[in-house]
């Protein structure tokens, strides 16, 4: 009998490529993506399995150093390194996004050195203006064309709507999972959530949804709950997909909300189809994914510059998280050289300060060696908030 729920999540977390390798052996096409701006619905609708490419903190970067400069996003560096070492040899292709310069530049190197049959690069617009949205939708049309050529299939509205439905279901399930961290003690720990989400990102959508349903059922019913610790924390940052990092943050606290690209962020909101499916995807991905790389222009005061209103426009969504999840403090956690997020740190800190919420900024170099200093910083932060 195969493992279920949290046990299954644990299995997939530790061996994330196993299932997609099996599927590939059965003739399925698998496409990897490192960034949550890729509309997975378009892949699923063409019977392609999307696989989230993550870095591996424990694997020393050796191969990628031949082709990448030194001061560079350690996660992209690690993703490429693993690919060059053949860890992603089950992939038929990659889809990358201009979410950051490291990703754009790495994409090209990826293509040159791995020579996978399929390669697509999404030129992600940098703002949320109407013309940006139209441009993004046209980029997605272009992606549909290359995917159709690659798969030899035609995208049907019916299949696409089914895929949208399945991913909306997935969003709802992850949102439900985070509902279970609202009580104190939370019904599920931040460390468990990291494992579940990484597993979901490594499975086809229907299997991910099944896993989420099992996990929800299991954690609601189980007797042994996580303990309530010293404080309830919000994690804000780029990507924290390693359970060891999360368990350092959770040594003396409960991370009850993870606002990052391996946490809640990819699962916020839903795709609402009015008439055009691709436009609906463009609206959701451009406007609902709160990645720091997209410049959210202030709608409140187009002419009069008001810093507080500007902050409210950019980070207003964090306010209800603070109150609904009863957050005591915020950890702003970034890997070194994550420029898009690092540029946001002063402003987002100002926003948390305006809400009266203590926040601390921690940068780490994506190695295990950075965990002990991280622990000291987190503990010192907890000591400041009492």
């Amino acid at each position: 009998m195969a493992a279920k729920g949290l046990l299954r999540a644990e299995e997939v977390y530790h061996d994330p490529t196993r299932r997609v390798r099996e599927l590939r052996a059965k003739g399925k096409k698998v496409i990897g993506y490192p960034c949550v701006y890729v509309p997975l619905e378009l892949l699923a609708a063409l019977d392609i399995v999307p696989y989230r490419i993550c870095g591996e903190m424990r694997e020393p970067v050796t191969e990628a150093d031949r082709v990448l400069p030194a001061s560079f996003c350690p996660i992209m560096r690690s993703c490429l390194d693993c690919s060059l070492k053949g860890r992603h040899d089950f992939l038929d292709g990659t889809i990358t996004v201009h979410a950051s310069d490291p990703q754009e530049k790495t994409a090209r190197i990826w293509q040159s050195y791995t020579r996978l049959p399929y390669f697509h690069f999404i030129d992600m617009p940098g703002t949320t203006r109407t013309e940006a949205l139209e441009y993004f939708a046209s980029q997605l049309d272009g992606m549909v064309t290359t995917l159709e050529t690659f798969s030899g299939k035609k995208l049907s509205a019916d299949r696409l709507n089914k895929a949208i439905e399945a991913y909306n279901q997935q969003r709802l399930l992850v949102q439900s999972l985070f509902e279970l961290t609202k009580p104190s003690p939370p019904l599920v720990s931040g460390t468990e959530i990291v494992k579940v989400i990484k597993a979901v990102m490594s499975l086809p959508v229907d299997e991910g949804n099944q896993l989420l349903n099992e996990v929800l059922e299991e954690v609601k019913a189980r007797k042994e709950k996580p303990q309530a610790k010293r404080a309830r924390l919000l994690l804000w940052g780029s990507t924290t997909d390693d359970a060891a990092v999360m368990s350092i943050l959770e040594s003396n606290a409960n991370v009850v909300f993870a606002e990052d690209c391996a946490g809640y962020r990819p699962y916020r909101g839903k795709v609402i189809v009015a008439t055009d499916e691709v436009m609906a995807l463009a609206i959701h991905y451009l406007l609902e994914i709160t990645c720091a790389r997209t410049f959210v222009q202030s709608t409140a005061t187009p002419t009069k510059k008001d810093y507080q209103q500007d902050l409210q426009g950019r980070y207003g969504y964090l306010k209800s998280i603070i109150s609904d999840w009863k957050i005591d403090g915020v950890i702003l956690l970034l890997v070194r050289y994550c420029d898009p997020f690092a540029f946001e740190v002063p402003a987002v800190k100002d926003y948390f300060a305006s809400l009266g919420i203590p926040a601390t900024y921690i940068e780490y170099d994506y190695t295990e060696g950075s965990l002990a200093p991280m622990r000291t910083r987190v503990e010192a932060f907890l000591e400041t908030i009492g």
Partner: protein
Amino acid sequence: MAEASPLHHLYFAGIDIGSTMTKAVIIDAAGAVIAAIKGPTGAEHRHLANEVMAKALESAGLKLEEIFRIVATGYGRFNVPFADEHITELSCHARGVYHVFPGARTVVDIGGQDAKCLKVREGRLVDFAMNDKCAAGTGRFLELTAQSLGVGLEGLAALSQKATKPVEISNMCTIFAQQEVVMRLSQGERIEDIIAGLHRALAERVAALARRLGVEPEVVLTGGVAKNAGMVQAMRAALGCDLLVPPEPLLTGALGAALLAKEHTERLLAQGKPLEVKARRLEKATFYTGG
């Protein structure tokens, strides 16, 4: 007065295991220091926090059973088997410095492996910034460059006082800075000016860290680097304000740990909780390995 306190017969200890030095302080119920011991953390001493503690007990003329509560701090604070609690060195320094300088609002601590700036309100840590790059901006930077100049740590302060024109050291990477030092020497610069330049470079870097947090007087400098008068002078210049240095700048962490142990006990007493002495033995420290 110790006699007036219901805790008068009790003693408290703080042990601070830093990357370079291990420090232990024992205080009495009035908060007076009755023993203060320093010893190298060093590779072979790494697990011998128990020996430093034993020396402190000997110096105080006390037995282990007479210590009511022990707080461990510093990067080796985890799993000190004879400690009751571990608290970060940041909170302990904040508390220890407050004991020496009650007006302290900013603490700059430059240790062997990191530099940190603390914002302090009445002995409580309210905010902090730590260097998160590498050995740049730490005591290790000075130690290694002093070594390559062949003067040793002790020589730094005296030599820097004789500088006439400090040289510009632009590279704060410990390895590259050493190369820069060698280059400066070959250009015929005086060793005194090079050392003063190193102090200035390190001070500028730490001052930038402090400015991120906001520097409010009184400002206190602690950690091993505070024993170097040349560095204190350079820090004053870099921060552009006066700087207080405790008589024992290495010990404020351990002192703070002991004071926090005492205050915890006072809180228990105020809550009417029974005071029970934990049975313990001085065992070797084991170190946190991240797993």
